[in-house]
């Protein structure tokens, strides 16, 4: 198994969820879609690790000198699942965007515009790229067009930047981590249980030269 970097061209803004996208979780989702089976844990084309679970990084935002990260707002129609016919008044009143006794019509979310993104890992980079291509996008609202991407480059990487991910707090030497650690609880494998970890900040950036 060798280290690799996947470089993604990102076409639409990314809305970061509470847990930033991680390569191993995305690859696992790709395998679930490939097999049509979400009930079991599939074998990942990635190396396992004692402290990190899987040798795969979280999302790294890659900006350029001429295109730094930018912020934007995405307004999406809110989920209407909790509308109930009993909630509709009689006679009908116009819906308000700002709310009232009904869910908001539009939910605004902050999104990040980035020209590129990267994932680092150790394993079969080509296979990971193929599985990522089965996904619709990265982050929240990916089924509605956010976080749309394509893998444009796969390179060998021996910098161990896959370590930009969560590591088990009781096992890892915190001084050896390449980031300023934040205590949290995260699952380290697909279908794993949350456990105490040191994790990097939500937004990791690097500059493409």
């Amino acid at each position: 198994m060798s280290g690799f970097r996947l470089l993604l061209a990102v076409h639409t803004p990314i809305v970061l969820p509470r847990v930033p996208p991680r390569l191993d979780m995305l690859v696992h989702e790709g395998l679930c879609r490939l097999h049509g089976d979400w009930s079991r844990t599939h074998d990942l084309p990635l190396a396992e690790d004692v402290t990190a679970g899987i040798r795969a990084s979280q999302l790294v935002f890659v900006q350029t000198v001429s295109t730094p990260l930018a912020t934007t707002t995405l307004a999406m129609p809110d989920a209407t699942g909790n509308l109930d016919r009993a909630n509709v008044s009689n006679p009908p009143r116009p819906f308000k965007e700002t709310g009232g006794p009904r869910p908001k019509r539009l939910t605004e979310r902050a999104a990040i515009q980035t020209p590129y993104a990267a994932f680092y890992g150790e394993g079969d980079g080509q296979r990971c790229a193929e599985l990522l291509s089965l996904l619709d996008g990265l982050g929240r609202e990916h089924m509605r067009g956010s976080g749309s991407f394509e893998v444009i480059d796969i390179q060998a990487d021996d910098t161990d930047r896959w370590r930009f991910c969560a590591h088990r707090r009781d096992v890892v030497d915190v001084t050896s981590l390449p980031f300023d650690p934040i205590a949290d609880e995260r699952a380290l494998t697909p279908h794993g249980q949350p456990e105490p970890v040191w994790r990097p900040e939500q937004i990791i950036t690097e500059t493409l030269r």
Partner: protein
Amino acid sequence: MKNAYQRLFEATETIRSEVQWSLETPTTGACACCGRAWDAVEQADQAAAYQYSPNMAVEWYCTTCKTVREPSQRALGIERRAGRSDNTVDARLGMLPGAGAVITAHSVLHLAVKPGHWDKFKGGTYAQTGQMHVCSPIQLLLTLERDARLGDPAKGIVYIEEFGRKADGLMADLRVTTSLAELWANTENGPSLIELTRLRTLYDRLAAQDSLDAALKPAFWQPIRRAAQGHLDRDALRAWADQRNDPQAILDALPRDPKMRLSLHSRLATLHAARAA
């Protein structure tokens, strides 16, 4: 580490201690307010009925979400009087626009309210026990940290920037903070990220360069703000850097989240006011 809902549940025992809800075993899939499955809530298998008005459908809430919507004259106070003077509308956490809170790692709720709130609620339990403060939520957080009352953030604290009017918006995605490097500001519109440690570093570096007074004004950050909005002006940035003693030190301390870069002057002003207090 406790999650945000557990912290809120433990911190609001005062409100629940005086109520008699009729709790039932839920038959729905999840709490209608926060959306958590029933086996994930604090009092599993105990659902409280909530009805916005008699014309609306009955929804089933977990006891944590129900607490936020529960009026409590004893804990908080009287929100207003309606109709005749003896008809009171009691205050509830879910209807406190302009007020925020910090729940410490010891599950103690501290409210940050405006002067008008204090006038109404000063007789309530939270005010009487020193858990209600007239200041901004971020000032409250920094004061609690300074006085060693915040506890270890790694054990989980909750920062509510504003309760607002929509409790379902607040409770749908209530996030715990485990490090002041990433402070989750919960509001009725969902949580947003404040990189407080970076903000403090930026503040100190600006002060070291005698640029702090200028940095509290929006014009100072114009090229940075425009770049964060997707309009990079290299000439303006170069001119901005030429006016600084050590521009790289300032740039290195900028928040990574471009959204935070839109409001640096106001964030720094809040920090400045908190430090001056």
